[in-house]
């Protein structure tokens, strides 16, 4: 967009702003209510489980989505175009993610099975203070880089202080003026972007090991960390596509987000669908072939023993088979509607996948799937939070929206 662009009115947000906020607020409220009732109910651990799973999922979505911008910027992939703005908006969820993470401490007794068993020396690594401090630091670093990247990016986008707002004014105060300054900002942006990518790999591996793998403290899989961050990017892209599609539809297709963009990001999504499946298969094969009980028991419990076996199949079909078959066709990638459906399905699938990984550890000898209304509502709640975060970000920094939005008015 050129310098003469008139200031963008908040009205340009998808949906009239108020309705959007209220909707999001309602969703969030429902979630919170469900969670609280769950806590007070007979099975607080179930409520915590739902909370935990959704925390992991939605944080992953936010982190993954932001990675898109950072990555495309670092490797100088110019095709990202308007999508990068959208992807950065997900950074708005980071604060919520942090809060939820700390909230886990409250439910620790319900969440960390290893608290109550003999770890044969693993206590050195698996103990709450150390775990929360190292993961907390990890999150802070990751989110810090994310925000830094975002702020540098905004410095290049923002042309005016309006609409007013604390954060925005603060930013506006620091806009680069001279070419030299702009150049410096660019370099910083690259730096933070690169750091974000780096931190993404490290921190998400760590989270994968600490919060997911360690749920069964005697099981190990070296690939698990990588598996976790590939998954995160997978859902992140999914969410990004959904957002882009919504914006696209909302702007009546007269937007800067061209088919080419949808096609490219679609391909990327497809690639990560394959990669996710690959990492899934790689772990399965090695463990199946090795047949060492220390490893197999974990997998057997989740893939062969009911009730989990059914869940495993659902996850695999929803997260790989269907997307694979659908995405082979290149035209689909450019149909926003279809992509919204597909990506939502994948996100749900990964949500179930989290349940598959954590459920058995949290509900020993569960007769049927520990999956109920509460879980659904909590999911919705988190979705609400995510929408809130996005809406707020766009409200404060409309520049993140694709320029086509003026045309939309």
């Amino acid at each position: 967009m050129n310098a003469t662009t008139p200031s963008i009115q908040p009205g340009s947000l998808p949906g009239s702003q108020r309705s959007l906020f209220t909707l999001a607020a309602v969703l969030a409220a429902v979630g919170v209510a469900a969670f609280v009732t769950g806590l007070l109910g007979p099975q607080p651990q179930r409520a915590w489980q739902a909370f935990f799973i959704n925390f992991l999922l939605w944080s992953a979505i936010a982190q993954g989505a932001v990675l898109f911008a950072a990555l495309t910027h670092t490797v100088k992939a110019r095709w990202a175009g308007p999508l990068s703005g959208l992807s950065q908006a997900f950074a708005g969820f980071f604060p919520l993610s942090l809060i939820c993470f700390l909230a886990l401490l409250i439910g620790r007794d319900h969440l960390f099975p290893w608290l109550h068993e003999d770890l044969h020396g693993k206590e050195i690594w698996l103990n709450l203070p150390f775990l929360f401090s190292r993961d907390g630091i990890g999150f802070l670093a990751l989110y810090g880089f994310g925000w830094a990247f975002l702020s540098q990016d905004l410095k290049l986008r923002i042309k005016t202080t309006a609409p007013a707002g604390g954060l925005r004014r603060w930013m506006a105060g620091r806009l680069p003026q001279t070419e030299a300054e702009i150049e410096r900002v660019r370099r910083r942006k690259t730096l933070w972007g690169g750091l974000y990518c780096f931190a993404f790999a490290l921190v998400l591996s760590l989270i994968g090991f600490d919060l997911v793998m360690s749920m069964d403290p005697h099981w190990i899989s070296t690939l698990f960390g990588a598996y976790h961050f590939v998954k995160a990017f997978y859902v992140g892209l999914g969410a990004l596509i959904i957002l882009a599609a919504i914006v696209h539809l909302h702007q009546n297709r007269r937007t800067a987000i061209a088919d080419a963009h949808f096609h490219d990001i679609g391909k990327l999504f497809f690639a990560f669908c394959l990669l996710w499946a690959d990492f899934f298969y790689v772990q399965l094969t090695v463990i199946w072939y090795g047949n060492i009980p220390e490893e197999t028991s974990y997998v057997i419990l989740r893939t062969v023993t009911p009730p989990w076996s059914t869940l495993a199949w659902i996850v695999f079909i929803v997260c790989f088979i269907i997307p694979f078959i659908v995405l082979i066709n290149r035209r689909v990638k450019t149909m926003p509607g279809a992509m919204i459906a597909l990506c939502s399905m994948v996100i749900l699938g990964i949500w179930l996948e989290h349940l598959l990984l954590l459920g058995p550890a949290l509900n020993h000898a569960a007769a049927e799937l520990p999956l109920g209304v509460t879980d659904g509502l909590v999911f919705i709640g988190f979705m609400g939070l995510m929408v809130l975060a996005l809406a707020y970000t766009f409200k404060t920094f409309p520049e993140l929206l694709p320029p086509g939005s003026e045309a939309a008015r």
Partner: protein
Amino acid sequence: MPGDACIMGLFKDEAKAARVIPELAAAGFSFRRAHSPIPSHRILEALKLKKGRVGWFTLAGGIVGFFLGFALAIFTAVQWNLIVSGKPIVSLIPFFIVGFEFTILFSVFGNVIGLLVCSRLPDYRGLESYDPRCSGEHFGVLASCEAGREGELMDFFQKKGAEVKVFA
């Protein structure tokens, strides 16, 4: 059409070559084919050609390969009917690797065959009405006209800023 004269206009500029193609028809000449040193989207657009058919060969190959791979693995395993390392005779998890590799292999075969078939290669007769410069920096448009109109066609090409080459 036998007896027709074939004349090639050699353009340095892709765009000109592309522009000429529709005009040929308008001028009453029949377009034979275009030669280019690189895949030229402009020309393809000008010709309004739809996508090639290679993909179907590839897909077919892939499907064949997938089943062939699994079939081979399963068949041989069943023939032996030996349990090794306690693993089931037919264990699909590892057999998937065979299936996968065969899928790729046969898709590629399909792809190559498709490529040769669709673009009718090898074809050494094509060289008779062909100018080497087309593999260098020239975009050649080969057109034909009824006997007698050669002159017009040559002028036509020259007006468009092309060098002209006549084929008997």
